């Protein structure tokens, strides 16, 4: 807040207009998409004259959609577990330690986050074949896990840098070996960061299209299913599926945001 608001009043109103216009830009498409899922016609387009819940009942009765949903959730959960394990370990190695090759190791750690989507998907596809991993659930889990590791490392490193070193030293003085000191002091301290990173990984994996598309077998993940349906034509059924995915991801995102804020306040 400006100490002397009268000075920048004109700017302020102008910028506020831009901000709210941007909020509209960000929200209106999603709101329209949700509304279209309630349209009582097969034809996508405005105006909407009559409303129905049929598309939703159809979606929840559709075994393919339900199983795809479960498939995506399973992939997200399993890849997140791997990312968290690996990412935390790398963060513990990198944070506050000086060794030859630390810079290179850090660079390689963040590499998967910087590779453009299509190139990352292609590289994983080639490497999966090289390793003998068949396209399918295992390949998608592996690709998502590798892709999400950098985000875990960055979040955990940030938290780790605020850990009071004296606590570890005290534990070591009292006879705890490095592993016990890690498990009983460092790890509990990292819990908020790990939970935050987990939510982030879950959403990244659940929303990912390009890696799932190139590494998937015959079973589609939810974004791949929506993409396939879109290619054969728009229909309110897709809106209903997309809305269910939207509500779920947004709800988890908001909850995680509040949760991590509360955790940060407590510490």
């Amino acid at each position: 807040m400006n100490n002397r608001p009268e000075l920048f009043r004109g700017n302020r109103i102008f910028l506020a207009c831009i901000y709210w216009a941007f909020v509209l830009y960000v929200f209106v498409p999603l709101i329209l998409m949700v509304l279209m899922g309630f349209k009582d016609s097969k034809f996508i387009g405005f105006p909407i004259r009559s409303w129905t819940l049929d598309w939703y009942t159809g979606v929840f009765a559709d075994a393919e959609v339900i199983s795809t949903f479960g498939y995506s959730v399973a992939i997200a959960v399993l890849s997140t577990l791997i990312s968290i394990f690996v990412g935390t370990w790398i963060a513990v190695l990198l944070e506050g330690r000086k060794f030859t090759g630390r810079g290179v190791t850090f660079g390689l750690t963040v590499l998967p986050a910087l590779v453009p989507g299509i190139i990352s998907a292609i590289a994983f596809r080639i490497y999966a074949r090289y390793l003998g991993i068949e396209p399918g659930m295992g390949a998608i889990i592996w690709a998502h896990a590798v892709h999400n590791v950098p985000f875990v490392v960055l979040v955990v490193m940030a938290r780790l840098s605020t850990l009071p070193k004296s606590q570890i030293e005290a534990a070591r003085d009292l006879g705890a070996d490095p592993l016990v000191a890690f498990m009983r002091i460092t790890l509990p301290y990292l819990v908020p960061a790990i939970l935050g990173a987990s939510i982030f990984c879950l959403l990244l994996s659940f929303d990912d299209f390009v890696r799932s598309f190139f590494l998937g077998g015959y079973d589609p993940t939810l974004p791949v299913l929506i993409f396939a349906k879109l290619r054969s034509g728009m229909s309110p059924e897709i809106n209903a599926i997309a809305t269910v995915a939207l509500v779920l991801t947004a709800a988890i995102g908001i909850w995680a945001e509040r949760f991590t804020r509360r955790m940060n306040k407590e510490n």
Partner: protein
Amino acid sequence: MTYDASAEREGRPGARPAADPTFWGRLTGWGPYHVLMRIATASPRRQFAILAAFPILWVLTQHLGPMLQMLRVSLTDAYPVAPGVEQSFTLENYARFFGDSIFWMPFFRTLTFAAVFTFCTLVITYPVAYFLARHVSRRNQMLFLLLLLIPFWVGEIVRTYAIMILLGNTGAVNMVLRFFGLIDRPIPFMYTSFSMGVGIVYLTALYMLLPLYSALEKLPKSMNEAAADLGAGAWTRFRRISLPMTIEGISSGCTLVFLISTGFYATPILLGGPSTTVFAETIAGFFHVAGDEWPTGAAFATIMFAAALVITAAFQRLMNALRKGDRT
């Protein structure tokens, strides 16, 4: 219970800690664990090696490995190799790229689009970030930011579809324009570079907004006030203070958005048309057909990654030079 704490710290466990009923107490009291831990912590060097081995192995095999393997495949004449056939190294896959405009046209189009969309994203999000950082009270800042973060949690495909509904011939924009009598027949927004731009800016805006916001937040407010007192107008203040002081945020935001924009695959397919084919679609084409084409696809992907890296590196150097030039 007597034991030598300093000996313990130096890795020479003296006496074992007294029996501790917790899980960790029982584990440390367990003979085999004790022996293993003594071997592992025998020297700081060994301890470090045990800690470092897995992460370094992981980044080499999982982070670097796929890129190297892609590079290797791009230099071979056939992949996977048929049994009994000798695999030979070749640069032909790279030569193929320059030989046909059907390949390099989408390539330059992708880079141009990515640059233009990155610039659009910057211009659109800068005032938003400025407003958030400078004109919203601390208490509300998080709330205002969270409002923009919510759509960010929604996936790429769903948001692309939302743009399709917005811009379609019977979409919301055309409906509103018709309602006000501004047009007689719908404007064909869809399947053009315009619809693609709207979609890509929509998907990448937050990657720009967050670095800009954190750069602007650090900017001391007194500077703007001093400049205003000395008679500088809004435009001068922006050009002489805010812009030079946030070059780091601009640089990292643009780099991130540019790299992401070059990698989109589904969004250009859904929002673009035949005249806006991007290189991602060209690359993907080699992986949908028989395996023979994999080396070419790998070569094209390598070309694109190299180009994106060169451009972002040059851009960052330019930004650094600008920043240094401004300080002197």
